[in-house]
């Protein structure tokens, strides 16, 4: 590729182009950048991006070097579509708070009550998987429930104004809905399911992975350090995020109180196995268009 | 009692007063010709009578059913000639009436032509046909024969005269042709300084081009319009 120029500066310094989302603790705190600078790596921030898919595209088309640590599902599909990307890091989180929620006066108290109702989910994302898994677990036929595909920004008003009966959603909007609309959790991922389906992930171009293994290791280590800091200082981390999200204090308190721990690691055997299990579930449920072998698309560094 | 009564009509454009306390009456069935210099306000008066422009002062009484032949033909370019003539007529008889009106102006062959394909004089005749096919109580004609050759013009004169004797509308004809005014009108007016400057009843003897009264009236009118012409050959 022609990314030599982008990857290395004069004087042996490297440059990495990192994508970021609207909320980015590493970018905001500045520690991350300094750490890398000290190791001879300059950081160029590209973004912000609303979700994982466009960052994958930015990486695939060599306008950035790292995707932004987002959901593994679009990554799997992008790989199936022939993009030359590889997994270099993955994360798991505990507790898994993603939930299906309903309004208190909706008469829905459990998954079984969803039959005949409209549920908002994000298409082919965490929300949809959770709903599918929940229905399976409680033996509710899938076609008795109307899957209403809505991205979180559109789902919230629809849910709040009663245009949909329930909402399958992750942390953040979840707590906000609880505070604003008084929503109740009727199915919580970590409590009810034994497996994680969707993981956090970093991907790079495969040629980049071959040539810049060292840089990648340093970048991922820096990311991991940031995450460890956030795990240890949930209140401060939330504060950084909230400068952008501007959630009411009650929501922030709730988020801090949940104390979600996210663990990043470079791709390892466990990562491959977990990602594979998640991908298999997705393929079995026709979310992914085909079977995928994660090991072929992962680089252990 | 007159069909058209305009009294002390005033019309200003900015500083300029184009109609300045003008008085005019036209009886039912009367044919009045209006002469005047270019820009003296003939069209302005006609438009006021047609109810197209407001006036700045004075009163106007005109019948409901008026028709105007404008100085330009004003045919709808997107309608064929016959539909332009038939515009606003009841559907059932529209085509037939339009066709016969077109025949009268010598354009029956052009009934299905687009207006853009007409020559200047043809378009003017279509506009005339459009006005004549209705039966107005007041017919306002703004130089309807200007673009016509001598022969066609004579035929159109005959046509208008026929119609007016049949339906007896009040007619106001603006023209620049003094002969035409004398030959067609019962009364010839000249306009100046925003008013009717002079009025001449046309005696029936004066309708003969070769006659002395014709020559005299012609001379008088040309004089009022500022043209001095030798009278000797009359």
């Amino acid at each position, binding site marked *: 590729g022609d990314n030599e120029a982008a990857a290395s500066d004069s004087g042996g310094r490297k440059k990495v182009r990192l994508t970021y989302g609207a909320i980015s603790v590493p970018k905001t705190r500045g520690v991350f950048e300094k750490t890398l600078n000290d190791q001879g790596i300059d950081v160029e921030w590209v973004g912000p991006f609303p*979700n994982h*898919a*466009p960052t*994958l*595209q930015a990486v*695939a*088309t060599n306008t950035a070097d790292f995707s932004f640590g987002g959901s593994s599902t*679009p990554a799997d*599909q*992008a790989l*199936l*579509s*022939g*993009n*030359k990307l590889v997994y270099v890091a993955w994360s798991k989180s505990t507790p898994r708070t993603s939930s299906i929620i309903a309004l208190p006066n909706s008469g829905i108290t459990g998954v079984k009550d969803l039959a005949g109702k*409209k549920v*908002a989910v994000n*298409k*082919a994302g965490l929300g949809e998987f959770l709903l599918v898994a929940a229905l399976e677990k409680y033996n509710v036929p899938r076609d008795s429930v109307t*899957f*209403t*595909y*809505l*991205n979180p*920004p*559109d789902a*919230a*008003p*629809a849910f*709040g*104004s009663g*245009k*949909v009966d329930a909402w399958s959603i992750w942390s953040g909007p979840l707590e906000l809905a609880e505070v604003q609309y008084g929503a109740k959790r009727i199915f919580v991922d970590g409590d009810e399911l034994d497996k994680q389906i969707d993981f956090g992930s970093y991907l790079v171009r495969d040629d980049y992975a071959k040539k810049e293994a060292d840089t990648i290791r340093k970048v991922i280590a820096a990311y991991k350090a940031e995450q460890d800091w956030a795990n240890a200082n949930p209140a401060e981390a939330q504060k950084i995020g909230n400068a952008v999200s501007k959630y009411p204090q009650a929501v922030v308190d709730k988020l801090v109180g949940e104390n979600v721990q996210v663990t990043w690691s470079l791709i390892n055997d466990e990562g491959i196995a977990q990602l594979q299990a998640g991908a298999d579930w997705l393929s079995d449920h026709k979310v992914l268009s085909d079977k995928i072998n994660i090991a072929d698309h992962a680089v252990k560094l | 009692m007159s069909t058209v009564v305009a009294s002390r009509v005033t019309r200003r454009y900015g500083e300029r007063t184009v109609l300045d306390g003008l008085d005019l009456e036209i009886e039912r069935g009367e044919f009045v010709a209006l002469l005047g210099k270019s820009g003296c306000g003939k069209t302005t008066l006609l438009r006021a009578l*047609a109810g*197209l422009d407001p006036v700045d002062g004075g009163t106007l009484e005109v019948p409901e*059913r*008026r*028709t*105007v032949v*404008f100085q*330009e033909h*004003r045919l*709808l*370019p*997107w*309608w064929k000639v016959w539909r332009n003539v038939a*515009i*606003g007529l009841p559907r059932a008889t529209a085509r037939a009436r339009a066709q016969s009106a077109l025949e009268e102006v010598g354009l029956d062959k052009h009934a299905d032509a*687009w*207006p*853009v*394909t007409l020559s200047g004089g043809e378009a003017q005749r279509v506009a005339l046909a*459009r006005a004549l096919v*209705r039966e107005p109580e007041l017919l306002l004609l703004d130089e309807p024969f200007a673009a016509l050759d001598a022969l066609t013009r004579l035929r159109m004169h005959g046509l208008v005269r026929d119609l007016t004797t049949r339906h007896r509308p009040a007619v106001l004809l603006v023209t620049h042709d003094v002969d035409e005014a004398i030959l067609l009108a019962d009364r010839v007016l000249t306009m100046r300084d925003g008013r009717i400057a002079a009025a001449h009843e046309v005696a029936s003897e004066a309708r003969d081009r070769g006659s002395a009264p014709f020559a005299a009236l012609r001379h008088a009118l040309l004089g009022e319009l500022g043209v001095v012409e030798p009278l000797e050959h009359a």
Partner: protein
Amino acid sequence: MSTTAIAGPARTAEAGATPPKKRAVPYRTISWTVPVLLLLAWELASRSGLIAANVLPAPSSVGTTAWHLTETGELPHHLWESVKRAAVGLAIGATVGLVLGVLTGFSKLAEAIIDRNIQIIRAIPFLAILPLVMVWFGVGESGRYFLVALGTMFPIYLNTVLGIRQVDPKLLEMGRVVGLNRLELIRAAILPGALPSILLGLRLALTNAWLALVIAETVGAPAGIGFMATNAREFLQTDVIVLVIVLYALIGLTTDLIARALERRFLAWHPNYHGGKK
């Protein structure tokens, strides 16, 4: 000073069998040549590897994808859903736009009441009101019809007003003096005069309809080519992304052909559209 220069356009050397009036440019040939050439160039560039497949797949491979999706019935299904939505929304939007446009163009009072509000509202991008649409209409079809109607109404409104403004006031006067009532006047003078402009409004509206659908179909729609596009974007399925773009291009082409046919039909009288001399 030359006395007998031969004027360019008037020179006609003994014109024989073929009169020189015939149009010099074979319009059709040229106008189809360019798109076809572009297509060929694209295919060649792809095959030769000048363009990487994951950046822009070759037309032939897009064709294959299209064929696959047609066989499974997926593509026709999506297309049909979108066409249905576009048609319904457009019908609503065009009607509202036309009626409001005629009112505004016709009456100062109506203009005073309507126009500024429309100018304000039309500045708001659909995307920005998506959450509100959700609240007002829920997630059914009606919200999508609303968005399409909203997107199509404005160009039609604006172009109708423009068209009416440009109708020769002399013709309107003529209409009045031959005793037409308002409705007849609209039918005889205003709509035909405004038609070129209204047809353009329709063309612009159609584009907006598809754009509105791309946005509307990200919300709660289980089908449609906007939905297909969003999905493909989400999953980086470059061939489907490009297929969708090609679909839109084809839709544009068809629209253009239809619009041209309408123009030929309704503007036969117009010297600048087809024929006519003066």
